[in-house]
């Protein structure tokens, strides 16, 4: 059936800069903020914006993401018409078919899916940003201005502008120039990688782009510049509020820490814009007689008997008596045993830090310092030491240093 707006969520990236955290799952399925996975933010934004048809484009390690999305029920996306659809690359007649070659190619390969719903507008989203945004408001601007493409932009500082794709706009916020990571930025409006296209326009540009053998089939590199060059009307939509890219270990850690100040970053408690998640069935968390918790998030199924400060605990985490967790992120099922010390670290799902082991340390001046990461399912043995910025993918034996 025809839909006015369909959202396409690009979730196929490996997220290689998250290293050990994405060795088993696609980046959008990485746990975030105590109860969520990264993809919950754009998905919940869709639902809260009234978009009920979402295509999720996957190709890298999709199994966990697929089972997480399921029929879309936690997001109220289990619809009889529309809902959430997982869109992997597929084979065609005559041995045709390829992996998604780029962001634009991923949408190109799913022209058939979009044609099923014959939308007026398509919203293109990515699965690696944490933010709340009313896409309906952006679509309204797109309609009102009669644009072919509307790009969501964020005001950044001029120093930061050198790291982003920068939109140069006129007095009406019409984009006349796009510069990727300019050395001398002319504006401070950074693209957030969120686009609204008039589908009939985009459809033609995707077909033309596919025919160009020199194209890298990417929105930022090809489609946007081509549309600008052709003189299409392209508008900037100014977004205000919290927005964070969580594509690196540091930014993922940072953004999790931001959730500890919900009143100043993203208010997850705001009932008017809930972020939905598929939540496992767990009883409330329990604090023991010697528990000491401060400035932290704690989730269902946790058992805290030790000290937890400035940290984010996902569900079913155990912090034993005498254990000390500082400025860390403990993903679902992580265990920190008695006397262990975890600081400035990300301990992934079901990893175990045995008693009196040490993982990470407080920042010092050394250039090697960074967040320590223990990958999912890994055991850090008794009295073992994991250095700051280490990336642990395999078990560390007791007493060893890694």
């Amino acid at each position, binding site marked *: 059936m025809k839909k006015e707006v369909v959202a396409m969520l690009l979730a196929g990236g490996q997220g290689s800069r998250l290293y050990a955290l994405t060795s088993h799952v696609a980046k959008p399925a990485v746990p975030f*903020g105590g109860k969520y996975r990264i993809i919950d933010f754009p998905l919940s934004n869709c639902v809260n914006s009234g978009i009920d048809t979402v295509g999720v484009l996957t190709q890298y390690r999709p199994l966990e993401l697929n089972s997480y999305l399921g029929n879309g029920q936690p997001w109220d996306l289990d619809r009889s018409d529309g809902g959430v659809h997982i869109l992997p690359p597929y084979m065609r007649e005559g041995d045709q078919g390829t992996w998604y070659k780029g962001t634009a190619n991923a949408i190109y390969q799913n022209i058939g899916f979009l044609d099923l719903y014959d939308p007026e507008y398509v919203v293109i989203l990515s699965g690696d940003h944490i933010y709340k945004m009313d896409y309906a408001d952006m679509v309204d601007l797109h309609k009102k201005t009669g644009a072919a493409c509307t790009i969501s932009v964020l005001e950044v500082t001029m120093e930061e502008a050198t790291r982003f794709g920068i939109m140069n706009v006129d007095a009406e916020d019409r984009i006349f120039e796009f510069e990727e990571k300019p050395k001398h930025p002319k504006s401070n409006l950074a693209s957030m990688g969120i686009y609204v296209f008039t589908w009939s326009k985009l459809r033609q540009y995707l077909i033309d782009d596919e025919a160009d053998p020199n194209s890298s089939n990417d929105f930022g590199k090809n489609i946007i510049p081509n549309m600008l060059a052709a003189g299409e009307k392209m508008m900037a939509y100014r977004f205000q509020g919290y927005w964070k890219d969580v594509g690196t270990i540091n930014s993922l850690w940072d953004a999790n820490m931001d959730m500890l100040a919900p009143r100043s970053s993203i208010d997850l*408690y705001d009932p008017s814009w809930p972020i*939905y998640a598929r*939540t496992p069935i767990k*009883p*409330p968390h329990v604090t023991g007689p010697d528990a000491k918790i*401060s400035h*932290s*998030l*704690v989730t269902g199924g946790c058992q805290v008997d030790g000290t937890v400060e400035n940290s984010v605990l996902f569900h079913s985490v155990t912090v034993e008596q005498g254990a000390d967790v500082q400025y860390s992120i403990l993903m679902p099922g992580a265990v920190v045993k008695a006397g262990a010390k975890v600081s400035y670290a990300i301990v992934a799902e079901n990893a175990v830090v045995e008693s009196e082991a040490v993982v990470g340390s407080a920042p010092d001046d050394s250039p090697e310092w960074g967040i320590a990461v223990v990958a999912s399912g890994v055991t850090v043995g008794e009295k073992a030491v994991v250095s700051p910025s280490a990336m642990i993918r395999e078990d560390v034996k007791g007493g060893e240093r890694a």
Partner: protein
Amino acid sequence: MNDLHGILFAYRSDANLGELTRPRNTCSLAFGGRYRLIDFMLSNYVNAGITDVGVIVHESYQSLLDHLGSGKDWDLSRKHGGLRILPPFSYAEQGHGEYRGNMEALAGVAGYLKNIRQDYVIMAWGDVAVNLDVEAVYDQHIASGADITVVCTPTLNGAPRFSEYVEVSADGRVTDLSVHPTSAGKALESLEIYVMSKQLLMDMVEYCAAHDVHSFSRGVLQPRLKSLKLMPYIHQGYAGRFQSVGDYFQRSMDLLDPAIRADLFNPARPIRTKDMSNPSTYYGPNSVSKCSLVADGCYIEGEVENSILSRGVIVEKGAKVVNSVLMQGTVVKAGASLAYVIADKNVTINADRMLMGHSTYPLAIAKGTVV
């Protein structure tokens, strides 16, 4: 997989629970931080593979409807079967207020019972906190050749005048059933959970409707103990009943015992409940949380000790909550102090108020009250 149909009685509104059940029936009483009492038996049914459940309600069931919704949180939102809420439809003695007994309740939904597609039925009250292996009860029922299997507990905790007890002979058959006696003696306490064939249930419902018999225990079981083979299933785990405010408080505090939690929240048979999409609980820089059970979505900047906090509770700076049960949305403002208090949904305790009950007489505050 089995051939069981689940029935839950959800019309009891216990006067002794005072403030806590005034706006609702006991099945929708909040318990254990994130649950309603009905979650326990309903999850037990679902965990045993039961796909069709009828919930018999009578009055004040709005909060129950709101909680159960389509049944999707229990995977009971189905094309065939699934969850059915059964309000009174047509029964002989209309206008009596509450059903006079569970046989009258069953007669009131006789049309529904006829269409049950399973050969066996389990029926229970929806207001018992228990993690029961219903599949094991069913297996024993089939293996023993009993006409009716009744689930019993060796650990007595109900008040005798509201409870039922069975005596069992050497060959494991129930020889006597006493209903609401003055004292319990050393008999087994019945949890009033029964398994029987659909056919037997239908026969009994028809007989009772024709003879104006309302009570299953008094009207059916007691007179027929010799002709019906009634066998007990002994549930060794925890079972919590809620017959007074004091009971409610004690059962809540039971949850601070790790062994009881391990039994009641057995991960192999999880207790499901309505998903509210709460974020994690936030603890502020100078907060204290000791020996407590805290649900998601709370915002704690004060002190919490020996307490049960439901979803979305706020404890402001300098506030102190000890030995208390705070239901969903309770706000304890700065400097307030609570001990032995049960605060129902959306209660607000203003700054610097001091409220104190006693372990034997906890102070219950009605839904929505501002203190």
